[in-house]
């Protein structure tokens, strides 16, 4: 419960920021894919879950130390590969169809991939060990704080900078932004829009996979994780503004902190607090904190 010690609340705030960074990995991919492809991937949480399960298997095979770093490199690439297959085989054919069918298409991947993960890894909860270099905790005031959370905050910040750099400082980013602003004109100017869409979807899946690896040691990996994550992603992109990376970062941190503080007040209803935030944003700023008005 509420401690009179401000350091305790400060630590809880840090916990919230760390969790928020974890959510940012997932939400940034979703919002990026929407910004360019205009499709919301309902299976984005499923990609995250696949990343977490793969990370679990890699660490079981290679041990928590080597395994963790191997997973960090290999798993996001693997999930990006999955994304490429799904974009090329299925999603590509649906860009011009009604929203309902696009949603249903990505929804089927929740059903199919979700059931496949259950067949491969079973229905019981998997716990993943963290590498010894990131285990343990530091003292902040009189409260101990897990080193792993500091690592999550640092890595989250790094990923945010990398996304910003890729989008605004590279030619690839310029082409991507052009395709996002007006795909037809970009195509006419000689941009291979098809390829851009595939690459963006792959990058989006990469971020989901990375999020899965990073969050795996602090999450219970079990069926249903996919829906927990996609729900958080939806709340985050609505609060932050769909299509805005900066909005996703800001709102992921807000949501992480609200959740961490909500758990202190009424643990059972922490989730309901997030909905209150979302409803407040919907009524005052329907297009999110940093979102632009969307016509469709």
């Amino acid at each position, binding site marked *: 419960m509420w401690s009179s010690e401000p350091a305790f609340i400060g630590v809880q705030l840090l916990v919230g920021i760390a969790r928020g960074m974890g959510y940012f990995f997932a939400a940034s991919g979703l919002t990026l894919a929407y910004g360019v492809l205009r499709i919301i991937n309902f299976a984005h949480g499923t990609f995250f879950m696949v990343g977490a399960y793969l990370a679990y298997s890699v660490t079981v095979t290679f041990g928590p130390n080597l395994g963790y770093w191997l997973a960090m490199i290999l798993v996001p690439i693997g999930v990006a590969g999955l994304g490429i297959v799904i974009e090329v085989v299925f999603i590509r054919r649906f860009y011009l169809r009604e929203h309902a069918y696009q949603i249903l298409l990505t929804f089927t991947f929740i059903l199919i991939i979700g059931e496949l993960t259950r067949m491969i890894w079973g229905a019981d909860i998997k716990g993943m060990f963290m590498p010894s270099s990131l285990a343990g905790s530091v003292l902040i005031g009189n409260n101990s704080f897990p080193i792993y959370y500091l690592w999550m905050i640092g890595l989250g910040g790094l990923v945010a900078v990398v996304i910003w750099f890729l989008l605004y400082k590279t030619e690839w980013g310029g082409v991507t932004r052009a395709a996002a602003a007006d795909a037809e004109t970009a195509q006419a100017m000689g941009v291979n829009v098809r390829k851009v869409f595939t690459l963006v979807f792959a990058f989006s899946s990469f971020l989901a996979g990375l999020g899965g690896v990073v969050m795996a040691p602090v999450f219970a990996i079990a069926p249903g994780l996919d829906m927990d994550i996609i729900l958080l992603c939806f709340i985050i992109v609505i609060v932050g503004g769909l299509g805005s990376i900066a909005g996703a970062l800001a709102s992921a941190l807000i949501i992480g902190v609200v959740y961490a503080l909500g758990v202190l007040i009424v643990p059972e209803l922490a989730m309901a607090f997030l909905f209150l935030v979302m409803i407040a944003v919907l009524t005052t700023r*329907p297009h999110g904190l940093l979102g632009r008005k969307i016509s469709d």
Partner: protein
Amino acid sequence: MHTLLPTRSHLGLLVGVAMLILLTTLPFISNEMWLTIGIRLLIAAFFATGYNLCFGYMGTLSLAHGAFFGVGAYTVAFLCAKTSWPFFVVLAPAPVAAAGFALIVGYFSFRLGSLFFALLTLAFGQLFWILIWKAYNITGGEYGLLIGEYIPDALKSSTGLYYFVLTAVIISIFIIRKIVDSPFGRTLLAIRENEERVEFLGVNVKRCQLIAFVISGFFSGLAGALLTIFSLAAFPDYAHWIKSVEPVMACLLGGIHVFVGPAIGAAIMLLLEHLVLNVTVHWQLVLGGIVLLVIFFLPDGVVGFLAERLPVKKKLGQ
């Protein structure tokens, strides 16, 4: 010759009468197992028909109807278990509560476009499901809320329950048909075809959509209540997001542009599930595969597919 072929309405009438005879005599011609399947089939068909008011007629994909179904289920279960009200009084608040929840969800979810609508309805639906899990003291959590001892004996026999469900479903579907054929139903169709133009005609589109959403939620709640009476318990599964996907599948499979499409889709789904579960427990995998096939190859559903190819005269204006 074309003149000798039956018209589509003749064919429809014939099939309808045959269905009605089959439905009313089912308890006499089938065994216990098929009667239970019949009850589940009626509920699923009704759930899908009510859902299609939103999906097929208005063109709005909602992912909160599983939660409305769950609200109906848990309202009945809660009132049975915690009050001493007579049974048939307990039934009435269930669809009303579901409609109330639909009003809240719809009020916030219709603010943005159709993409956001799907996303917001899924989020609100999941919130209800999470609350069911967490409110262990009220709902019994994962073990569900058992109400076997409060159900009147007449509804515990399969035959009694079958006729009760059949009556409720036929009356409800009749009402839905009336709504679809009313000027309001036509307005919904117009909104689906061109929202902007309808707005220019002076119709309050958002309000129409909200009303249809609430009506649809009302019937989902009733369907949930019926399933709770059938299974003598309400479980969190009744409010799960997969429950929202079931009517979508039924609508797509049967065809969203024909009134009976969703009911037929629901029947196909349920029979398929029955068959598949005999072979494998991975129903979800099969379900995903079916949807994938349908949205790729059968965009008008089975009924729409057949209607295009049957050698019947089309009525003018259809």
